[in-house]
């Protein structure tokens, strides 16, 4: 090895200067967290909800399989026979007591897998700050979805509008028995307020990003990747065009939504004014 090679080897540390200087122009990865949130992973495991059928009946049948499978031993269920005159669930029994202790829950989703009626699923909500232990134990009153099928917003939970949508992604992404042929097949019942949720595509490419809410996430992830880590179709000029199309589409939708909202507001105002005049 000659002197020139030695010098070249020694001067390799200059690459650090180039890299750090380049980083001045790269987008920042920091999020202003409480003000601005990252899009959540489509299959994020957050806190549970107890779902209801589209007619308002509870899905839970009080079978206690979730409590049995729970490795953290955080679920407590007691079933009771349905009262014949006003049944709670469309079966023989229903979950009379349902408690989950979130100081113990590890969000492994085994309860969701065990549930025979898709009664318990996990939402993407995870930002709680309870100030006493009693609040950490969610009872049935807190877990059951409300009359629109949405999780209940508890005072110590930090939500933004839309955070409660696109939930139970895990269930919808998994084919029963792990059979690849069942990927994308609907194997679950409808939910109150949402109907039958669309399946989430696996790796077959038959995915509906729009409906499952994964598009924004993938875009965000790609903005921070190096060129070689991005799929060929999203790279370079082709990718730029693709991104431009996507963002144009999104802006168009936003614009449409704003216009619709303004029109509605105007209509409401006009109605109020005419109502007040009459």
């Amino acid at each position, binding site marked *: 090895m000659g002197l020139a090679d030695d010098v070249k080897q020694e001067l390799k*540390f200059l690459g*650090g*200067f180039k890299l*750090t*200087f380049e*980083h*001045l122009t*790269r987008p*920042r990865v920091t999020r*202003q967290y409480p003000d601005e949130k990252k899009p959540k992973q489509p299959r994020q495991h957050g806190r549970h909800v107890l779902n209801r059928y589209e007619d308002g009946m509870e899905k839970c049948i009080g079978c206690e399989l979730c409590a049995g499978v729970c490795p953290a031993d955080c679920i407590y269920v007691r079933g009771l026979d349905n009262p014949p005159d006003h049944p709670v669930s469309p079966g023989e029994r229903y979950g009379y007591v349902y408690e989950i202790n979130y100081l113990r829950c590890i969000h492994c989703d085994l309860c969701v897998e065990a549930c025979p009626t898709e009664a318990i699923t996990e939402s993407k909500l995870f930002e709680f700050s309870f100030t006493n232990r009693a609040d950490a134990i969610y009872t049935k009153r807190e877990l059951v979805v409300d009359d629109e099928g949405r999780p209940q917003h508890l005072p110590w939970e930090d939500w933004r509008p839309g955070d409660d949508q696109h939930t139970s992604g895990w269930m919808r992404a998994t084919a029963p028995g792990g059979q690849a042929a069942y990927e994308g097949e609907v194997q679950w019942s409808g939910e109150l307020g949402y109907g039958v949720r669309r399946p989430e595509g696996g790796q077959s490419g038959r995915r509906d990003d729009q409906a499952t809410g994964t598009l924004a996430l993938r875009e965000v992830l790609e903005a921070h990747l190096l060129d070689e880590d991005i799929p060929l179709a999203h790279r370079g000029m082709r990718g730029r065009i693709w991104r431009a199309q996507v963002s144009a589409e999104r802006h168009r939708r936003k614009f449409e939504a704003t216009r619709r909202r303004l029109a509605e507001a105007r209509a409401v105002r006009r109605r109020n004014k005419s109502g007040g005049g009459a």
Partner: protein
Amino acid sequence: MSAVLHPALLGALTTHGDPLYNHGVGWFVWVVVVIKVLVAFAVLLVSVMLMIWFERKLISDMQSRIGPNRAGPWGMLQTMADGIKLFFKEDLVPDQADRFVFKLAPYLSLVPALLIFTVVPVGGIVTLDGHAFELQVADPPIGILLVLAMSSIAVYGVMLAGWSSGSKYPLLGSVRASAQMISYEAALGISVVTVVLITGSLSTRAMVESQATNFWDWNLIRLGFVPFFLFFTAITAELTRPPFDLTEAESELVGGYHTEYSSIRFALFFLAEFMNVITMSAIVVTLFLGGPDGPVPHLPSFSIWFPIVWFLAKVMIFLFVYVWLRAALPRLRYDQLMTLGWKYLIPISLGWLMIVAGFVVAGWWGIGIAVGTVIAAGLLLRAFTIGRERVNADEAVLPPLGRRPQSPERPTAGGA
């Protein structure tokens, strides 16, 4: 009121120095001096505040982060918030500490940092009410010696802080610090001597004036770049800035020499450290980049300001470079640090001093000395190479020390 100063001191001041003292020392002189001191003090403190903010912001930019952004616009008041917080923290003195020295040490590192800045020429000569004075706090005839002396005293601050804490990590940190600072002071001093040689004076003002008007008269170019890089490396080590920040290597020594300090005393160390960064950048600019020298357009009312702006711009470049160094380079190991200091910087600076001295003394005959130095350096390098090859060769009698690639055909000592 005209002869307050001792005649000898007055003479020393007037032979070569601030024209402010040319007509004796009256009330005007006192006012100007006090204002200069106060302005320099305030500007230094504020610039330290901004420097800390600048460093945190820039390094977070270089790491794709945002950095402080809560206190004030763009987080500029973050340092002030930290300072206020530190001020109100409990001031602890460890049981094992030598109480007097423990309390003295922060000031020993802060005061030199402040004093070094006094000899830095910030701008040109200003005339106010018939009195001409220099835009620099003091212009002693020994200017650059004051810098060297103060930077040596700053070592005491670090050393005594570690020693008086009565704790192991601070002691280790301060031992490293004093060894490092003393090693690098040699290269630092020798590269300063080249500047002194070519200027023919120790006064910082004279150094700046000798570099004025043309940028190729800057010592950076006049002395052939090498002393500049030597000086810059040496002061980086002297400042214990990355990549030479072994004294406060967080991963090894907790906080280094100031581990046991808290509250306002810790803040003083922090202040001194960043103030040193600023003053040393100013010293580099003064010695090698012509200080406030730069093109001044013919605008009578602004001509005072242009040199100051040039000076600040040059200092800013160095502040940027310091942050950049911190972002780009990993910390050196202790033996690497010593190798760099003793085996490279000191011989190179000595050789370069020889060359410069040759040219200064003998004009173009200095080429002879230059050639001689280069030949001697080549011989030395060859000797080093041969020595290293012999140490690493297969027939080496003693097992080689240090890290080196193991040859595949040679079994390791344990496997034999």
